[in-house]
């Protein structure tokens, strides 16, 4: 399971486990009817329960439970028929009750697993080599409520408290320490991020804190027992995660190699300096005094409820990947690319339904041109300005040789910028390629006649001149000649 690494002394192994807090996409809070909409004016979404007035009580939001079950089913986990909400007690101004309602020894989701595709990253703690598949075990996932936010310096050097976020439903997903590099940790986090959006339980918006990662990192000599871990808190970007792990791993190795010891601690990553810094040590760790919340009954999940949720589960990325390679004969690379997000896969399948049998070319366009253009315009797949129907219409014209690849690129650019369907763009821009063999032969004959000297050079062995003739012929056809056909005709005629 453990990969050797290339970090200065290759004798060190890296061990990483993740705890991910993903915000569930319910309209109201986990224990009250207050809205969960992001970005409202401070405390406008804090009802009596959110501010923990005397006498208020929590009532569990069923939507949050359904989403937790959905996640559990998606990672093949055991769903507890009975789980228990517990109180985690500590004082902080953004924690209005003085305790957080969470789950402790009986979580709703038990052991599961997530298969990830690891792409090597550049960086010192990266495993080397090719993209590979790996199974990361999930220890558990449990429901809990989010805390509010302290707003420092809100007024005249005082700290304000915004309780809009207090009570927002979270699913905390805990992995086993199965990852051995920043690349694997990032791949796992990305796969998880994609999955929670894929099954529709979270918007996964990292800027808004809907997907936050705590990363436990330790290093050890091969075969040695696990080293002491330090936990990097609250990483909300994959880039920072990689940087933080790289820095932390290096720091731990340096410390140990210089004869130092690692002390268990909670640390923060500073993106400006690229460094990690201890926040609190184990000695100041809280005693949270967990106990079952007497205000909430145990959460019972019946087989009927389980099946109802299962029926709402979409085809999962892994199943899709397998189907794409078997049903459409796509490569693993293509299948991965197409299942990078649910939107991408949906787009692919919708476009493909318009041009059955053209899976490969459809995949090429989506993974190539479409993704690149989205990237350039800084857009998500969901915001893609062209529809599957538009893309399918264009692919149809590539497939039936109405347009060349060059022409297709022009159609694509026009569709992206101005909309419209492929056929009318082809018509308006006159992009229809010439496939009439008579016309192409006539052009080729004229070129051969007009360039007798070059033809002689070619025939005497100067093969490189072939491109020269293609260029001339294309120019003569105003770029519309069917390239494959033109090649054939040219080859034949030049051969004499």
């Amino acid at each position, binding site marked *: 399971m453990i990969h050797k690494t290339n970090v200065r002394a290759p004798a060190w192994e890296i061990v990483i486990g993740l705890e991910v807090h993903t915000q569930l996409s319910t309209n109201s809070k986990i224990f009250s009817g207050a809205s969960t909409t992001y970005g409202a004016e401070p405390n406008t979404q804090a009802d*009596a329960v959110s*501010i*923990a*007035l*005397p*006498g*208020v*009580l*929590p*009532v*569990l939001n069923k939507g949050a439970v359904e989403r937790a079950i959905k996640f559990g089913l998606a990672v093949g986990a055991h769903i507890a028929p009975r789980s228990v909400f517990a*109180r985690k*007690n500590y*004082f902080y*101004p953004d924690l*209005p*009750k*003085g*305790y957080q309602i969470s789950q402790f020894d009986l979580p709703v989701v038990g052991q599961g697993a997530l298969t990830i595709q690891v792409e090597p990253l550049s960086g010192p703690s990266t495993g080397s080599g090719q993209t590979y598949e790996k199974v990361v075990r999930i220890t558990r996932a449990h429901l809990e409520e989010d805390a509010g936010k302290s707003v420092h310096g809100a007024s005249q050097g005082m700290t304000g*408290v915004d309780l809009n976020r207090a009570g927002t439903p979270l699913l905390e997903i805990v992995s086993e320490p199965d990852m051995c590099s920043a690349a694997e940790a990032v791949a796992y986090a990305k796969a998880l991020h994609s999955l929670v959006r894929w099954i529709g339980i979270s918007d996964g918006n990292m800027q808004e804190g809907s997907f936050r990662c705590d990363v436990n990192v330790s290093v050890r000599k091969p075969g040695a027992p696990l080293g002491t871990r330090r936990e990097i808190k609250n990483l909300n970007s994959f880039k920072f995660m990689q940087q933080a792990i790289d820095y932390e791993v290096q720091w731990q190795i340096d410390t140990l190699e210089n004869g130092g010891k690692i002390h268990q601690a909670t640390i923060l990553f500073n993106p400006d300096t690229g460094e990690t810094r201890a926040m609190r040590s184990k000695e100041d760790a809280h*005693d949270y*005094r*967990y*106990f079952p919340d*007497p*205000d*909430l*009954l145990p959460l019972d999940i019946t087989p009927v409820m389980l099946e109802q949720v299962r029926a709402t589960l979409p085809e999962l990325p892994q199943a899709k990947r397998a189907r794409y390679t078997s049903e459409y004969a796509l490569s693993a690379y293509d299948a991965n690319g197409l299942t990078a997000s649910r939107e991408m896969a949906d787009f692919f399948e919708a476009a493909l339904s318009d041009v059955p049998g053209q899976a490969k070319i459809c995949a090429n366009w989506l993974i190539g041109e479409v993704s690149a253009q989205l990237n350039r315009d800084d857009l998500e797949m969901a915001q893609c300005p062209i529809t599957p129907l538009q893309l399918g219409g264009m692919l149809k014209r590539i497939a039936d040789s109405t347009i060349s690849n060059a022409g297709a690129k022009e159609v694509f650019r026009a569709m992206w910028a101005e909309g419209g369907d492929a056929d009318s763009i082809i018509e308006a821009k006159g992009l229809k390629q010439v496939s009439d063999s008579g016309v192409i032969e006539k052009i080729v004959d004229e070129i051969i006649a007009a360039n007798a000297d070059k033809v002689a050079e070619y025939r005497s062995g100067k093969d490189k001149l072939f491109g020269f003739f293609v260029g001339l012929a294309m120019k003569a056809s105003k770029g519309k000649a069917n390239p494959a056909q033109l090649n054939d005709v040219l080859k034949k005629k030049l051969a004499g």
Partner: protein
Amino acid sequence: MLNSSLLQLGSALRAKTISSVELTQLYLDRINALNPALNAYITTNFESSLAQARAADTLLASDKAQPLTGIPIAQKDIFCAKGWRTTCGSRMLENFIAPYDAHVIEQFNNAGAVNLGKTNMDEFAMGSSNETSHFGAVKNPWDRNAVPGGSSGGAACAVAARLCAAATGTDTGGSIRQPAALCGISGIKPTYGTVSRYGMIAFASSLDQAGPMARGAEDLALMLNVMTGFDERDSTSLQRDKEDYARDLSKPLAGLRIGLPKEFFAEGLSQDVASCVNEAIAEYKKLGATIVDISLPNSRLAVPVYYVLAPAEASSNLSRYDGVRYGYRAPEYTDLADMYEKSRAQGFGAEVKRRIMIGTYVLSHGYYDAYYLQAQKIRRLIAQDFENAFKQCDVIMGPTSPSTAFDLGSKGDDPVQMYLSDIYTIAVNLAGLPGMSIPAGFGSNGRPVGLQIIGNYFKEAQMLNVAHQYQLATDHHGRAPQNIEL
């Protein structure tokens, strides 16, 4: 009028013999005159009460009146009532104006009852004498040197002194039954989950249960009809059909099997109380009941188990009082931790702090298994004892409290002596069973004695029947203390 039952008051109101405004004013005048000495109420709001009375009179003029419409009810200061100061007997909430109504308050408002004021109580319902209230001790109207019991001492005093027609209380370990016994009135704590806890300030969530306090069982039945009912805002509220708790009041008791647990008549029970309880049992035999000797072997563990579980829950429930959003905040502090420490040190009284400390201790790492978990196991054994007992009998009877009301200040230095005051009531809360106390005479010191009746789950109507038949045959519940007439 002051000695009328709720049924009689309702009839008088509907017959226009008296208006709700007149009736309310009558009680407000009495509160004005007597409360300075008795201290039964923490907060009154005459304007608000009279406004409700006027609205009730309008209802009474139409045909929309319900049984309690226009009747002035005292509310324990543990229930949030919109626009009313709601202190829970604590300095922490001395200036807290509740912005919403508890379910219980809503139910009374919907019934057209008049909220007469908020009654005094032990701080956060922690106490058996009412002496832990930040707003001063309540006096027992039968003897002003004696405590009224607690924590619903203000309510019990107000009912006994005719400062309200009836009152609400809450009972976590005996807080309705013990003050009812000590003040010579009736009170019932229904099955856990019967009355919604929404808006009722939490002490120990798994034990807290609201119930009515009144002079007789008949009144309790009418009160329960209003207070009970499913409420989706309380996850522990039970989804059951609405029932009429007065339906069985007049059933004869022939064939009733009364279980007497030997543990309730052992060492520690005062002679006064024992003889009153025995007389009551004799009366029940006359009414046709048979006596069954039973045993509740684990009941001796009820007090220690309770003083693990209740403080554990309380230590967490009271964490919200941190001085950040509402409630008391220390005037001076250096930083956040200092603000927490000073606000809580100054805002809470000694008994509350003691229980927060105990609760924090029993939940802390390394002690949880030995205390909290062990106590939960014994709690189940205690419930099993009752389950076995109810195979042999229909109701269980015994003393409510081991002695009559003790003198003010007499147990102040000894919390354990104080805790033992609830030795017979606590097991009922641990099991979630309904329990009640009715007046059963007086000790040689002239202070009242209570008879406790414990029923099986959801047997409130039967218990009220058992109590009512006794009250038809006796007059203990009809007696009034001296020195309360104007």
